[in-house]
């Protein structure tokens, strides 16, 4: 069936079974591959996008349930106009393999937008559901603090 979704400000008519996960529509139909498959179980956070500004696991969100505009990492910022969170991740060199980075950046972008001057505990709680295996957490925390305008 045809479903209409808005992604990064553009409307798309998508042909897909309604229970198709948004993740696969983004990656395979719209060619937005910044959003990653990590587990398909909402356990790791690699697939995080914003739906109506809220961080959401696209791997368990049926495309038919998308009821607000979607923002992916490609829509967050660009090399010419980076989002402050992306700039902070570059400044702090806050990754190694980078496979989890989409989820870290998207979760952080939504978090700092709604939480000016967060505490360290709030920052860690916001990222608790996002897994990183390279162990770049110290750098990610530095990048989040920087993007949120707080000092350790």
């Amino acid at each position, binding site marked *: 069936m045809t479903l209409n979704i808005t992604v990064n400000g553009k409307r798309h008519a998508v042909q897909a079974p309604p229970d198709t996960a948004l993740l696969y529509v983004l990656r395979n139909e719209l060619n937005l591959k910044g959003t990653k498959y990590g587990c398909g179980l909402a356990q790791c956070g690699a697939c995080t996008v914003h739906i109506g500004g809220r961080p959401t696991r696209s791997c368990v969100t049926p495309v038919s349930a998308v009821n607000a505009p979607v923002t992916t990492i490609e829509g967050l910022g660009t090399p010419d106009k980076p989002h402050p969170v992306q700039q902070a991740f570059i400044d702090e060199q806050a990754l190694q393999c980078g*496979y989890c980075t989409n989820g870290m*950046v998207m979760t952080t972008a939504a978090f700092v937008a709604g939480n000016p001057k967060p505490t360290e505990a709030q920052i860690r709680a916001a990222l608790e559901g996002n897994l990183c295996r390279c162990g770049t*957490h110290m750098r990610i925390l530095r990048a989040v603090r920087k993007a949120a305008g707080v000092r350790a």
Partner: protein
Amino acid sequence: MITTLTPTRRDFLKAGGALIVSFSLPFAHDAFGQPKPDPRTQELDAWLAVGADGKVTVFTGKVELGTGVETALAQIVAEELGVPFNAITMVMGDTARCLDQFATVGSLTIYRAGPQLRQAAAEARHTLRELAAARLGAPAEQLSIRDGVVSTADGKRVTYGELVGGKKFERRFSGSAKPKAPGEHAIVGKPIPRVDIPAKVFGSHAYIQNVTVPNMVHGRVLRPPVHGASPVLVDDSALKRLPGNPRVVAKGNFVGVVADTEEQVMRAAQALKVEWGAAPVLPEPGELPNLLRGARAATKELVGTGDAAKAIAGSAKTLQAQYFVPYQLHASIGPSCAIADVRADGATLWSPTQSSFLTRGVVASILKLPADKVRLIWIEGSGCYGQNGADDVTGDAAVLSQAVGKPVRLQWMRRDETLYEPRGPAMVMAVRGGIDGSGNVAGWDYQVWSPNHAGRPFAGMGGNLLAGEEQGMGQRFIQAGADRNAKNSYAFANQRVVLHQLEGTPLRSSSLRGLGSPQNSFANESFIDELAAAAGADPIAFRIKHLKDDRAIAVLQDVAKLSNWETRPSPRGDRSSGVGRGVAFVQYDNYSAWVALVAQVRVDRASGKTRVERCWVSHDCGLIVNPDGTRNQIEGNIVQTISRALFEEVKFTRRSVDSVDWASYPILRFSDVPDEIVISLINRPDKESLGAGEPAASPVMAAVANAIFDATGARLRSVPFTAARLKAAMA
């Protein structure tokens, strides 16, 4: 089946030479059953090309696994060639374009491939200087080189692009090119930002998971809950109603499915009914340490100095302890992915492997194609930390592509990766030791029992990958890694170190970061702490008095200063706070980087839960190429190994392996991450660069266990240090 081959890793390191750049590379060819070294290693064009615009393309068999070597190797070449850093583009791991510099493993890339690329770039600079001398009519030794421009003192100049741009060098190595002295370095040693990071942050990085090729279809594999079971029924009747032309590929015990799109193949894989027959019975999990100690093994004495047994028998105080580390996972965030395009006369593989050439050889065997008709193009995947599913998925995709005659992309699902990646082996270490009347170690007797740590693609043996094993192909493995850091760094007069290399492994396993080093270091550095406590000595002072190596002593003294170490024996007197600190020291693989780590833990005595609050680390890996990259590796090693120490264990029963996802194989989360990791880098420009991809992982388990002992007086000798274990130990 495992066949023991004679050369050990250390033997072929020796054969390759440590200080002299050997261009009979790579050093491990014979041991890993590879073809003879490529004669092109002496040809400049095999290593790099200069474009008309002065841009330089470097070809290397090493690959980027998320550790930053693409940037660090480019720094080395830019430095030596005399071009700006951003003039360099690295081509990595493509069997058609790059030389085999051996797999990207063992913290060997900067250590081994660094000098090779440095020498190639020095040869290129030497050649370019000669070409410029002829062009400018000036003696070569009077020319200066800066940013790819060769100049005379009176201002005549010619660019690299003008000298060879777009053409081949067609030169063999002169042997007379001398690399720069470290004092001349302007690019090596700088914290240059990594070249891959911006694309990863903007979502545009071309991971293997993002690659598409024309006419590609999608595959999935179906595997039993326990490795080794055969399919007794494959029922594809439900597939006929599904869109996307789903098609089953069954060959021996290999079962896969292919369909037109990824969504369609996932639905087809769910609809396909496979019944599995009886699986091999697994050990009782609680019996694993005893089972490992009793298993068939090749036993080898690694160290026999003095008379350990006699010295221990005659000591004032004797101790013994057994340590255990369970099977653990690489647990990459992205399940492995590959694309294969197999044609009648050859194949192209796109793979995130660590070992382009070895993997090509094994996949070619599975496909029954000559290896030289198979091209493997390496594409970065999720961080691997050793042999995760990257090689197996490449074999799977190739089998599916050959069966359907189209390019096939296959990304494993989370269950596939968690259940079928080759795990890091479980290990048991038993140590006996004695203290003499003056508080010195009189004798040390160490034994380790371990399955093989090198279940890698090797010697074109199809069965070394799942897809080949499932079709009944033969297996042969090199034996490596169980002995890594079994030998300690201390100058004990009487000591014995014995390796029991097990012939089999209850659960399929291979190389996980550091191989046996984190486990052996857990035992060695815990037991020396136990001896220090028995002697009533400060743990750092006790270590230092048994060391002779200046660089070992230097990192321990440095970390003591960095952490404001309070000199006293462990455990601490007042244990009410639950806070304690522990130290551990490792020289990685007994030849590589020196690392001393102090960990501070806080134990919640009521629950038994441990949190690592702070770490201080002193790290000496010789000449540092990129200090920020080195720090990133050190932080990553420490955080990842805190996770292994506190949380990680592959869960299984006699009938099932139960770790299949992140709920059943939990890893560290942000609330578990230390408040601070303070790093002291000891840079030694006059010493060769050593790797930093693994060394800082090795002391972590012991430093945490020693800190828990300091805080509580309870000694944990089994990883992971769960709340239940600690509560039991404190009771």
